[in-house]
């Protein structure tokens, strides 16, 4: 899922404080799981913004709402009037939702309340870790199900650098070395010999480097 982290209140305030009527809109899918962008967090953020407005003596009217997903047209029906009736929207969605709204409501400013951080998993409650960088050409079959592109700070494809220490990455002692995990995993699978297979030069054409990507499923097209 997509993980996000709320921006500092000061930064958020800086983007909305010039408006009179602001819709604070939660997104109740991915970013709600990490308790950063759902309707509940939108309500809390709104309360903080109202306090800030009072302290600053600024007259801003905040309205709160939330929809299931801000990245799909169908979910916007219940809030379309509220969006159109506002001077601006503060979106608690990931960067996808913010942009989707900005394109959908051409004359309404849409501001991000979150920093979209990564595609990750819930290791345990409250603990989220990056697992995938959506490179567009999955190599997990060869690396024992552990991705060196997302999880090695140098995205090395042929093994660990010299900086691994007690299985941890040289840039952060709390970060597992992806290649340490891959080697252990290959051994557990009885495939340690596979480590010696050279991973050829990777084409990044399906990655960010190839430009913005799209995916079309013919049978779903209207």
């Amino acid at each position, binding site marked *: 899922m997509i993980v996000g982290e709320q921006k500092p209140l000061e930064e958020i305030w800086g983007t909305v404080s010039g408006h009179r009527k602001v819709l604070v809109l939660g997104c109740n899918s991915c970013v709600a799981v990490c308790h950063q962008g759902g309707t509940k967090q939108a309500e809390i953020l709104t309360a903080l913004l109202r306090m800030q407005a009072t302290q600053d003596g600024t007259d801003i009217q905040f309205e709160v709402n939330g929809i299931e997903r801000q990245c799909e047209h169908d979910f916007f029906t219940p809030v379309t009037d509220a969006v159109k009736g506002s001077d601006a929207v503060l979106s608690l969605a990931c960067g996808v939702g913010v942009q989707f709204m900005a394109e959908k409501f051409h004359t309404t400013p849409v501001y991000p309340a979150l920093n979209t951080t990564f595609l990750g998993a819930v290791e345990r409650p409250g603990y989220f870790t990056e697992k995938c960088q959506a490179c567009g050409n999955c190599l997990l079959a060869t690396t024992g199900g552990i991705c060196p592109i997302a999880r090695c*700070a*140098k*995205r*090395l*494809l*042929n*093994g*660990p*650098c*010299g*900086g*691994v*220490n*007690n*299985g941890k990455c*040289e*840039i952060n002692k709390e970060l597992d*070395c992806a290649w*340490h995990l891959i*080697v*252990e995993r290959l*051994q557990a699978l009885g495939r*340690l010999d596979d*480590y*010696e297979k*050279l*991973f*050829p*030069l990777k084409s*990044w054409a399906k990655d960010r480097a190839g430009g913005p990507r799209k995916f079309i499923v013919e049978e779903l097209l209207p």
Partner: protein
Amino acid sequence: MNLKTESKLEKILAAGHLAVTSECGPPRGSDPEVIKKKGELLKDYVDAINVTDNQTSVTRLSSLAACIHLKLMGVEPVLQMVTRDRNRIALQSDILGAASFDINNILCLSGDHQVFGDCPGGQNVFDLDSMQLLQTVRHMRDNGKFLGGDEINRPPRMFAGAAANPFAEPFKIRVPRLAKKIAAGAEFIQTQCIYNLDRFEEWMKGVCDRGLHEKVYILAGVTPMKSLGMARYMKKNVPGMDVPDEVIDRLAGVPKEQQAEEGMKICLETIERLKEVKGVSGFHIMAIEWEEKVPEIVERAGLFPRPE
């Protein structure tokens, strides 16, 4: 002798001599005299000089430019090239640039992470890793082609090297990792600084058991300890460095003003022991911020004069 390149380093290794290389880091500025001075200091005592490529991610004068300065003064450079800062277009382009000056040696590295340097907020590239850079160098040389498949007019003829750290984890892939680098095209190896000789010998045994020492020239890395403080720092703070307590204890056991000489003695004893290790083809002397000591090490280790 069947030589693949014009490299002096390759020639000396192929002739069966113990090779000696050293390294110099380019300055943090544009004064070429710094490089020339280091080149002058080392040139009669080593067969080739590595020039580091923005080591520890601290921005410096470019490795390629520094290699050109050395080459023009008749010194044999080893161009260190990291994949951190350049994509495959820039890497191939710089390889050709180096080849145009007949720089005949390249050491392929991935490079330290930028978080350790002066631009921690910079992007890292890592389009390729060190093994893929080795493959690239060999492809350009042996097939005479760019990665894109087009023919190269006057292909680069570089002796291709790589680094190896016998001490890094996980230890079980240390020998396989060397085999992988050889498969990728490595012809010579320069190792991490060796202090833990038992561990190094264990690694070399694994290397020889697989016959890898017959496929690649291994230059054993040594660095003299300048002080007890340096030894403690390296043990504690340098990732992938294995400094046994005996080394610390020896330096701690002499007065401060004698620590440098003690460090020198340890280094020379290390070289003596390494000379006897099967599969060691030479030495890579990295005298960090102490380049002026390299001639003395070479002489006292009985490695002087250098072969022609």
